[in-house]
């Protein structure tokens, strides 16, 4: 085998906002009988061989530019979300008034249609709220007010507040506290939202008639809050995507649930800010286990 000669040329190519210098080589390998086997092409990125300083400066300028774009993106999302909330709040008031009988009786058929419109609008408000929360956490604008409290009492209250919702879905909500009170240093407001978010997911991705168990376990220097469901679970090859932004994992209930793909991303970010972690494990009997791991003392 020999070749018909190598053709080389230089090329400049825009990539991620700055110019890369490439060396390209094109070769035509030919068999012993003189038949051309195909075209062989190779490309080598040689940007750094030329003016490495200039390259570094370009890269810094580029990164600064990216940070700036990100900031204006976060700001844009925040403003847009707030602006979107106002008209949706108006829809809520007007449909709410009709549903609440302000303008006289509505027929059952009308009520059903109005309820759908109302629910649809509620969903839009939830999406806007999620977008806002994510924009705030991405921009580093979430203010946490750390307090010391007993996680058992705290979790029990959340369970109590959510029991009726679960009951309506004909699901049983069980709570298994740790043997003794465990104090954590955390921001109660966001922590409440994180636990509720995971609980809500567990319920939505679990069929009626099943049980959801919340356990508090006291390990030596951490405390673990586990939400265990008997639901559809997460396929092994999708686990990596669980906490990514806008990740939606397809399963038999996902269309019905209609989530935003932002809840778990936000929850993970919040737990990161607590120097903790959220871990997913499959439930051996089918379903999911989401475990919030919190340090007992806030690491500085």
């Amino acid at each position, binding site marked *: 085998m020999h070749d018909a000669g190598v053709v080389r040329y230089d090329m400049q190519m825009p990539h991620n906002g700055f110019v890369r210098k490439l060396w390209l080589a094109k070769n035509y390998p030919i068999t012993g009988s003189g038949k051309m086997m195909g075209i062989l092409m190779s490309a080598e990125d040689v940007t750094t061989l030329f003016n490495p300083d200039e390259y570094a400066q370009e890269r810094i300028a580029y990164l600064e530019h990216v940070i700036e774009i990100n900031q204006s993106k976060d700001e844009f999302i925040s403003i847009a979300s*707030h602006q979107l*909330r106002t*008209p949706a*709040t108006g829809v809520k*008031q007007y449909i709410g*008034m009709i549903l609440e009988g*302000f303008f006289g009786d509505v027929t059952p058929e009308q009520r059903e249609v109005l309820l759908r419109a109302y629910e649809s609008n509620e969903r839009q408000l939830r999406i806007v709220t999620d977008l806002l929360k994510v924009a705030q956490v991405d921009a580093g604008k979430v203010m946490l007010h750390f307090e010391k409290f007993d996680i058992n009492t705290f979790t029990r209250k959340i369970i109590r507040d959510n029991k009726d919702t679960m009951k309506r879905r004909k699901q049983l909500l069980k709570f298994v506290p740790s043997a003794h009170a465990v104090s954590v240093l955390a921001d109660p407001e966001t922590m409440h939202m994180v636990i509720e978010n995971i609980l809500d997911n567990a319920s939505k991705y679990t069929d009626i008639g099943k049980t959801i168990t919340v356990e508090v376990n006291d390990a030596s220097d951490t405390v673990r809050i586990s939400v265990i469901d008997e639901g559809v679970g997460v396929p092994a090859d999708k686990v990596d995507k669980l906490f990514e932004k806008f990740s939606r994992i397809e399963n038999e209930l996902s269309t019905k649930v209609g989530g935003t793909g932002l809840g778990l991303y936000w929850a993970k970010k919040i737990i990161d800010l607590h120097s903790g972690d959220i871990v997913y494990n499959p439930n051996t009997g089918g379903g999911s286990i989401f475990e919030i791991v919190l340090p007992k003392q806030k690491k500085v």
Partner: protein
Amino acid sequence: MKSNMTKKTAAILVVEDDVALNEAYRTILGSVGHKVVTAFNGREALELLEGMAEEPEIILLDLRMPVLDGVGFLKEFKPNEHPDVTVVVFSNYDAHKDIDEAYALGVDRYVLKARAAPKDLLHLVDSIIEEHSADADNDIEPEA
């Protein structure tokens, strides 16, 4: 729903720049006999208050408004100097910063507008009226 929701009524000033919401709140509160006056920004609200013979018992205040926003209104109105007026911030901004600032300026309650359905608004007003009558022990004249 409409009947017997509220046993007592109150004079309420709604400060909201969104026309649809302003009108909605007027309709909701008016439906059970509350006396509602509305303004579209903080400046208008202050002017209305100046011309009133009697202060309203409740002010529902939006934060982001043109001309004079909610915070600007609070700084001039000074809720702490009006102990008989309950100021409720009715906003779609729920950042800690906004909430803290409003409370620091003497606001009594902070409600996320998007969460409050018409019946929630009526319950809120009822509970404030109840608090007022418990405080002052003199009932507000019911409006027919």
